[in-house]
Structures are given as C-alpha cells and as structure tokens.
C-alpha cells in the first residue's frame, strides 16, 4: 500500500480506532469499579452517617475527603437501604428541578450559580445556622432550600423550586455524600484563601 492510496489510510483509521476503543474499554471497566459507591474514589451512601472533613494530603499535594466519627444526618442513623433510598430521591430532585442548569456538580452543569461539589463543607453554613436559628447545619440547609428567596445571599437570588421538606432533606443528604467523593482536588484550595495576589 502506498501513501496516496486511500485504502492505506482507511486501514490506518480502522486500526487506530480499534486500538483506542480497546484501551477505552479497559479503562472504563476499571473506572466503573472505582466510582461505584464503596469504590476507591466514591464512598458508600452510608457515609452520610459520618463526619466529613477535607484535609490536605502532602503526598498527593491536594485536599482529600476524610471520613470521621459518627455524625448522623438529621439525628438519625440510616442503614444501607435507607441511605440508598434517600440518595435515589435526592438525585431525582436534582434532575427534576434541573439544578444543573444553574449550578454545577464537579464543575459540570451551568455556571450561573455556585458549584455544589463541596457545598456541604462551605464555611458559610455556620453563619447560616445562626441566621436561621436551626439546631443543626442540615436543618439550616433545608430551611434555605425550601424558602430560598427568604434567605437571599446576594443580588442573584435562587428561585423557589417548590421543594417539599422530604425533597429538601434528600438533597441535603445527597450534598453530604457528594462532599465525601475524592475528586482529585476539585474545586481547588477549598476553604483556603491564597495570600499571594
């Protein structure tokens, strides 16, 4: 075959694609295991019963989630089945309300509203708890989600998406679990303000 023969390049295209697809298939198989709840990068849903922290790992040079002591959500420990159910509900709420057409998860979505990846760990919730008078952070988050226009943070207000109490709780649980996912350090420097400008 010669370079000016289309058949040469057709063979090249076919073989290139086959090799690349094979490699993609292998990596997909491995990645799917890692991202399954309980896999190397994604915690099981029952992590909502624990304290989540985000700590610098010197070896990796990034912040990583750390699963801590028991910290039941809304004061109630969820078994695996209940945790799974609340996650299913939370994700359904997020989809049905098209949250990702204003917000982002892991930076994916729309950029009009804040990224929600580590929203559970946002330092603002402490103040929020005080403002709402809620007994826990998660209750404060629920109060916000159910009545966002009552607690406008700045000029760009979140509209009321008509969430029920149950739906708001499911979203909060979902956000707690999401914060525990190892995202290779995204978003960067979470919670640390850089001194150098």
């Amino acid at each position, binding site marked *: 075959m010669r*370079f*000016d023969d289309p058949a040469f390049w057709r063979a090249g295209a076919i073989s290139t694609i086959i090799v690349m697809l094979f490699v993609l298939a292998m990596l997909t198989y491995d990645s799917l295991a890692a991202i399954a709840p309980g896999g190397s990068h994604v915690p099981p849903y029952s992590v909502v019963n624990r304290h989540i922290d985000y700590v610098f790992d010197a070896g990796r040079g990034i912040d990583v989630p750390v699963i801590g002591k028991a910290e039941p959500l809304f004061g109630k420990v969820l078994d695996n089945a209940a945790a799974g159910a609340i996650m299913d509900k939370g994700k359904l709420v997020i989809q049905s309300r098209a949250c990702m057409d204003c917000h982002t998860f892991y930076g994916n979505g729309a950029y009009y509203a804040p990224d929600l990846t580590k929203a559970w760990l946002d330092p603002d919730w402490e103040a929020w708890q005080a403002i709402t008078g809620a007994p826990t952070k998660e209750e404060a988050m629920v109060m916000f989600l159910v009545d966002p226009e009552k607690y406008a943070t700045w000029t760009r207000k979140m509209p009321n998406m008509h969430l029920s109490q149950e739906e708001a709780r499911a979203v909060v649980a979902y956000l707690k679990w999401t914060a525990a996912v190892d995202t290779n350090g995204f978003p960067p420097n979470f919670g640390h303000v*850089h001194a*150098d*400008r």
Partner: protein
Amino acid sequence: MTPTGLLSTALLLGLYVLLAGGYGLVYTLARLERWRNLKSVAGVFFVLHCAIAVLIVVSSALAPGWKLLLVASSVAIFVIPPLTWRYLEHIHGGEGTQ
C-alpha cells in the same frame, strides 16, 4: 501553581498553539504564492512559537513530563505544514505550484 502563574501559563499555552497556526497559515501562503519573503515570515512565526515553548519550559510550574510533551509537539508542529503541503501537492498533481 500561583494565581498569576495560572493565568500566564494558560495564556502562554494558547499563544503556543496560535503561533503554530500562524506558522502553518503563512507557510502555506508562502508556498502558494512562491514568495520567499513570506517563507521567512513563516519562519518568524515558528521561532516565536519555539520561544513561547522555551518560556513555558523555563518558567511554568508544569511537571517535566508535560514540558517534554510540549517540546515533542513543537517538533511535530514544525513538520506538519511542509509534510501536509507535500502530500497535498502529490495527490492534487502539483496544482499548488502551477
């Protein structure tokens, strides 16, 4: 990576590819018009592209592997326009230099 380093590295990376495109564009125009001057201009674009590559290698916070990839890509970038031109001429039967 520092905040300013982030912006400067990203801009340099964009410039790196932009200058590669400029080299490709002017090289092809030079061959079409058979202007020797234009070929020198193409050379200038490539030299500038290399200068940006050197700047990235020397000053950015990228790891060595990425810097090596950039250098290797610059070699490929140098070769792509003349190779593409020769191949186009070959399959078009020399239309470009008629």
